[in-house]
């Protein structure tokens, strides 16, 4: 069967009423969390994991992917109207978008962001559908050592290649690894780092860690900033429709943003932020109106918004085909798969094509839903921004603890939630990135397993890791991704990298 046939089959799965319903819940929740500053898609998926435990796997995963896409759409609304990015991939959108809103062109800014997100989401999801089978074929020749090398590369790019300090990125990653050791060793059955506490034998729950770091750590940090007065929400004045000139200036930016964002998301290269910065730079250089940049240029909204949606779709390529998460949200989605005993990877395409292709097809449908949710209904989302902070954060913590209590109603689990929350807060104060901890916790044990398998095959010969050409090339790239930024920062060129910091999503 060709990809097209698979996709059509997927459409049949995705078009089932229950799955449409899950997709609708997902994109609605996703848009809401994207709009609200302080919570992102990673946290929302983490909160929903325990709640969806009893639901149908296909439906839940469709919902999670909808949240991811929705978060990318919703973030732009906050950036444009509040000048506070709703999630980290929308930082660039705030640059030009908020300027447009202040000039009374908030409507067209929201429109170009939403339509750009739609165009990019559509193209990139089709890209995902057509590229995935090739990557799956490639992945079939991957042995343990190639997987291990790929994971090392992902570790480096997630933790230290971007952001403002190699030291702090690596420290976060290794704190994640240290937490990952806790529990029973999968190969020998020995308890490690559990200190005789039965609650620790199962290891640290990814959801507990993610909720603690993202929800509690973030709330503590925002609270500690003190009262800074109410944020100013720009009202949407005038028409939301774009003029002919807006269209003419936007469509190329959408396509370029997609072309930049998708490959960056698909490579194990960290979050969606990087694509948005590159797209912004490209638009600034290619624009016929460079003087407008910094004062509300529509290309500066169109390009980066397209790029961030395209890279969200791109992130699903390594997640679905290799089981390799490259962002915090993808890492938690991987935990979602594992919750149902599913391991994403080439095998999943063979054993469970209904689920994989249903998921991909549902993303196409989700995109249409998001366009409707974000254009005509944008006024509704703007209302969310007017919730006073005390109620907003009290509600966030209510639902954050609800998820943990639902998964395991024990005092010990809540104690861990509190401890990791304080850890996350301390890390925020000192500028340590959070995402590497989560990625380290979930990917660390998989990497250890692959490494030990590879060495078992070679009977303990370590050189085997470098003798496969694929693995060797991946390790060389990983080494370069570790060393080059180190040199750049030492020579005072670190500013660019710190702007590309992948902080949350």
């Amino acid at each position, binding site marked *: 069967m060709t990809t097209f046939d698979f996709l059509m089959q997927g459409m049949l799965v995705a078009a089932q009423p229950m799955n449409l319903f899950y997709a609708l819940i997902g994109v609605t929740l996703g848009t809401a969390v994207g709009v609200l500053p302080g919570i992102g898609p990673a946290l929302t998926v983490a909160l929903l994991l*325990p*709640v969806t435990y*009893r639901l149908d796997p296909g439906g839940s995963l469709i919902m999670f992917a909808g949240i991811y896409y929705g978060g990318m759409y919703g973030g732009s609304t906050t950036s444009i109207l509040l000048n506070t990015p709703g999630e*980290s991939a929308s*930082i660039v959108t705030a640059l030009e978008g908020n300027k447009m809103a202040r000039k009374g062109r908030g409507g067209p800014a929201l429109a170009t962001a939403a339509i750009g997100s739609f165009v990019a989401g559509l193209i990139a999801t089709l890209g995902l559908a057509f590229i995935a089978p090739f990557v799956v074929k490639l992945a079939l020749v991957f042995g343990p050592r190639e997987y291990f090398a790929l994971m090392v590369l992902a570790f480096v790019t997630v933790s230290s290649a971007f952001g*403002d300090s190699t*030291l702090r990125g*690596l*420290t976060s990653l*290794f*704190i994640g*690894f*240290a937490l990952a*050791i806790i529990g029973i*060793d999968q*190969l*020998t059955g*020995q308890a*490690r*780092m559990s*200190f005789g506490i039965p609650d620790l034998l199962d290891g640290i729950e990814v959801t507990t860690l993610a909720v603690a770091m993202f929800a509690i750590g973030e*709330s*503590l940090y925002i*609270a*500690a*900033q*003190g*009262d800074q007065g109410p944020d100013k929400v720009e009202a949407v004045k005038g028409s939301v429709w774009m003029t002919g000139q807006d269209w003419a200036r936007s469509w190329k930016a959408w396509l370029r943003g997609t072309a930049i964002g998708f490959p960056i998301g698909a490579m194990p290269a960290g979050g969606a932020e990087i694509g948005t910065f590159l797209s912004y730079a490209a638009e600034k250089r290619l624009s016929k109106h460079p003087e407008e940049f910094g004062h509300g240029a529509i290309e500066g909204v169109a390009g980066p918004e397209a790029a961030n949606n395209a890279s969200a779709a791109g992130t699903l390529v390594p997640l679905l085909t290799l089981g390799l998460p490259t962002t915090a949200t993808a890492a938690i989605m991987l935990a979602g798969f594992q919750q149902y005993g599913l391991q994403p990877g080439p095998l999943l395409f063979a054993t469970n094509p209904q689920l994989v292709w249903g998921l991909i097809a549902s993303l196409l449908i989700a995109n249409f839903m998001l366009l409707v949710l974000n254009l005509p209904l944008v006024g509704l989302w703007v209302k969310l921004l007017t919730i006073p*902070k*005390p*109620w907003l*954060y*009290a*509600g966030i*913590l*209510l639902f954050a*603890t*609800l998820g943990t*209590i*639902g998964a395991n*109603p024990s*005092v010990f689990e*809540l*104690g861990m939630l*509190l401890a990791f929350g304080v850890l996350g*807060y301390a890390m925020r*104060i*000192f*500028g340590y990135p959070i995402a590497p901890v989560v990625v380290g916790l979930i990917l660390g044990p998989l990497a250890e397993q692959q*490494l*030990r398998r590879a060495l*078992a095959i*070679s*009977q*303990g010969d370590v050189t085997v890791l470098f003798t496969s050409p694929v693995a060797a090339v991946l390790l060389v790239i990983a080494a370069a991704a570790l060393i080059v930024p180190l040199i750049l920062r030492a020579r005072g060129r670190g*500013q660019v990298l*710190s*702007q590309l*910091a992948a*902080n949350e999503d």
Partner: protein
Amino acid sequence: MSKGNTPSTQTRRPDRAALVIAVFLAGLAGLIFWDTSRLAKITSYSGIGPATIPFVIASVLLLLAAWTVFEALRGDFPARERQEFGPVIWIIGGLAAQMLTLKPLGFSIATGLLFAATAAGFGKRKLWFTIPIGIVLCLGVWLVFAGLLQLSLPAGPLEHLFW
């Protein structure tokens, strides 16, 4: 995000807080060494057993601790924003209160306390007003999630009135 990488030029004093971080990292490494050393005897024919990777991780943590000391002495850590600890204590207190009252008093009252404490942390200090709101809200949440979605949320005296 961009917090600025420029240490203030005149004060190149060692950064005490960063030194504490280094001690924490070294302590974590020590803990891993201590716990997994008893597993070191177990090796398979692959040459690496359950203790190998923890040893590697602990060693790297020691290296990172040393690197942190180095950066702390050079004053390379970014300047930190001023933190107000009052709100932080409110929220941590709320989480602790929830943790301790969850089993005896049930989900609604425990989480209602957390809700009110968090709101207090963000400036709404009228507890006589926020605690009842929190409890009623949490009871609603409990009815939806424990009642309809069958999530196992602990029930207390209040929940037993309804279920």
